[in-house]
């Protein structure tokens, strides 16, 4: 308790700023040395599959790195808006820490072309990372998250319902349970019409306990559906560790029991994630059915963030002391922060000779500016017209107002 309080004070002394992608990471530097190896997350051994990623073009690899940066900086910029801009109204379920999962998976998918040919992604209540990785237009997404009339969904949906079918991002779903089953329905239709498309669903560890988990996997297996179930196991669902509602260490074991190829990967390493996804996509396109990918990962921030947050208060948005004191041990968080997906992906590019260290850092500045521009554009967009709320109930027309009696 004491330690946390001290940290909080320290955090609130730092003015929030977007100077550094990692200003919330600074704490980790203080205590990092204390994290013993034994406390670091252990992963199931994975077959050497790096050949997939190693075969990729430089351009594609750089693209993955850029995507990770976009997700991170979208979030960092948005968090700053929440902390400093009193006009800003958007909220978010933060994805920072998990970027490599969405990025690695979507890099293995077909993201442009006619709607009947692209792969479809179903997302969760934590959608912005998936959306960016799938290729949605960031400025209009930012506008949507601030309820603007010109937002991606006209201001009707906001964060938990962002959707852009034109890039195959079927969309977010704020509910725990239904998305995987619905995604399996898309996979069913793809198979029925003889398409080689793939349906992907991103779902948290919390989804394991939902009864829909069984329906999804059972039917995917029975009908050999081209479904890829990406379980982002960030160890917690809102306030509880996943082991409190799941008897398996690896949720992938639950999927394997259905006879579905299931793999557990290090979700912080974009190459591992990409390789698993590529393998799954190849199998699905070949008519060989579903794959379950469990990516062990971690979210750095609170479960969600809302406008009007005060820096340091309830950990906005460094740690969530409420969550930490009751559930997430502080050192666990710090240990994970040392395996940051941005750092790991950059190190790989440098190591593979794809990019010089300095070029990689310059790229980050570029992305940062691009995101800032997106926010500037988005937050200058018009607000919605009240009467438009009666539209889009059905494909045509508008329903009647009833609030006037």
């Amino acid at each position, binding site marked *: 308790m004491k330690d946390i309080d001290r940290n909080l004070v320290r955090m609130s002394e730092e003015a929030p700023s977007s100077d550094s992608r990692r200003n919330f990471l600074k704490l980790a530097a203080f205590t990092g040395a204390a994290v013993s190896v034994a406390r670091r997350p252990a992963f199931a051994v994975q077959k050497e599959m790096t050949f997939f990623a190693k075969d990729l073009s430089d351009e594609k690899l750089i693209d993955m790195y850029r995507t990770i940066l976009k997700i991170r900086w979208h979030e960092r910029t948005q968090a700053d808006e929440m902390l400093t801009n009193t006009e800003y109204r958007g909220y978010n379920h933060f994805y920072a820490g998990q970027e490599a999962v969405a990025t690695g998976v979507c890099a293995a998918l077909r993201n442009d072309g006619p709607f009947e040919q692209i792969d479809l992604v179903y997302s969760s209540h934590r959608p912005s990372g998936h959306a960016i990785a799938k290729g949605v237009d960031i400025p209009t997404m930012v506008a949507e998250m601030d309820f603007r009339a010109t937002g991606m969904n006209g201001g009707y949906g906001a964060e938990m319902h962002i*959707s852009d079918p034109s890039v195959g991002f079927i969309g977010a779903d704020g509910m725990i349970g239904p998305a995987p*089953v*619905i995604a399996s329905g*898309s996979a069913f239709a793809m198979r029925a*019409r003889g398409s080689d498309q793939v349906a992907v669903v991103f779902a948290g560890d919390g989804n394991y306990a939902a009864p829909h988990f069984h329906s999804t996997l059972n039917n995917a297996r029975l009908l050999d559906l081209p479904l890829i179930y990406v379980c982002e196991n960030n160890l917690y669902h809102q306030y509880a560790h996943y082991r409190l509602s799941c008897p398996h260490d690896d949720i992938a074991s639950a999927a394997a029991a259905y006879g579905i190829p299931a793999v557990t990967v290090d979700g912080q390493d974009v190459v591992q994630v990409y390789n698993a996804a590529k393998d799954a996509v190849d199998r699905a396109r070949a008519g060989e059915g579903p794959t379950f990918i469990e990516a062990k990962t971690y979210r750095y921030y609170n479960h969600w963030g809302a406008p009007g947050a005060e820096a340091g208060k309830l950990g906005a948005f460094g740690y969530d002391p409420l969550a930490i004191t009751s559930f997430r041990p502080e050192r666990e968080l710090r240990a994970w922060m040392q395996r940051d997906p941005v750092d790991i992906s950059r190190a790989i590019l440098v190591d593979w000779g794809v990019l010089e260290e300095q070029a990689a850092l310059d790229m980050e500045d570029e992305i940062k500016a691009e995101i800032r521009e997106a926010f500037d554009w988005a937050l200058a967009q018009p607000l919605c017209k009240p009467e438009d709320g009666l539209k*889009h109930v059905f*494909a045509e027309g508008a329903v009647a107002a009833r609030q006037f009696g």
Partner: protein
Amino acid sequence: MAQKSWMYAVLEAVQHEMQQDPAMTWIFELTPPVASNPGKPVINLETEFGRKRVVNTGIDENWMASAVLGAGLSGSKSATYIPYQGALIPFEVIQNVAGKLRLMTGGKASMPVVWVIEMTGQTPGFAGQHSCYEEDSYYMHIPGVRTVIPSTPYDAKGLMHAALRSPDPVVYLYPAGLRTLTEEVPDEPYEVPLNKAAVRMEGSDLTIVSSGGGMPGVLEAAETLKADGMGVEVIDLRTLKEMDTDTLVNSVGKTKRLLTVDQSYYTLCPGAEVIARVVENVDGVKVKRVAFPDAPPPASPEMFLWMRPDAQNVVEAARGLV
């Protein structure tokens, strides 16, 4: 044109749409999509379109309902047939996802989806879970989903065509007690609109409004009342969402007397909505509501048949109003 049974008429529509659209799928569980009719070829969707498009699943109505939604979102027109025992298992995903998705995505979600949901027809002897007729009210409150309830083979076919061609998700309630009805049904495809009530009899003394499984009793009662000299106007709602307020208001504006008849439970039966809409628009109306009591249906036929509204109940209620 031929005398056709309900199910034959409906499967004719489905068969036609599946022939037109090679991506369209059909998911079922117990009831194979097979129908025969004297003088007509047997329709068997499973053999005609193959087991990739026409799938027989395990007992998981939530998967069925969610799967067709996912199929629709991926661009394939899709329908499923939910047996009455699972009639409300799809409720949550329809209410909380399908109904809201178009609006929540600012119009981007496409859902050419039909859920055919059986209603028991209130068969005596089975009690509660196997005899109830309550789905109409639950589905009808959901915005963003069209809910229809045909009462004749002709409408059943026409509403099926309209439902399958609609870009909106449609809950297509099938009052299974009407499965024995037959009538002249055209062989060609045709649509019955998804937002129009049908005036089944015209008159100026009293408006009786019902739907689905309630219609045969209402029509029988109306004949009796007519023979007695009463001018009865009978309206078959046919589409519960959106409800055709104009037809109701026009009729009661003339008759000033409204009797609603439902096999659904009294509290919040469709008739409650009919009454509320009418009295918001017409002054000085006398109303009565005939409905199943607010009790789950008991098994005993003696109890059940007494509780389920029948022609005699309608006749007496009508006489009390006029």
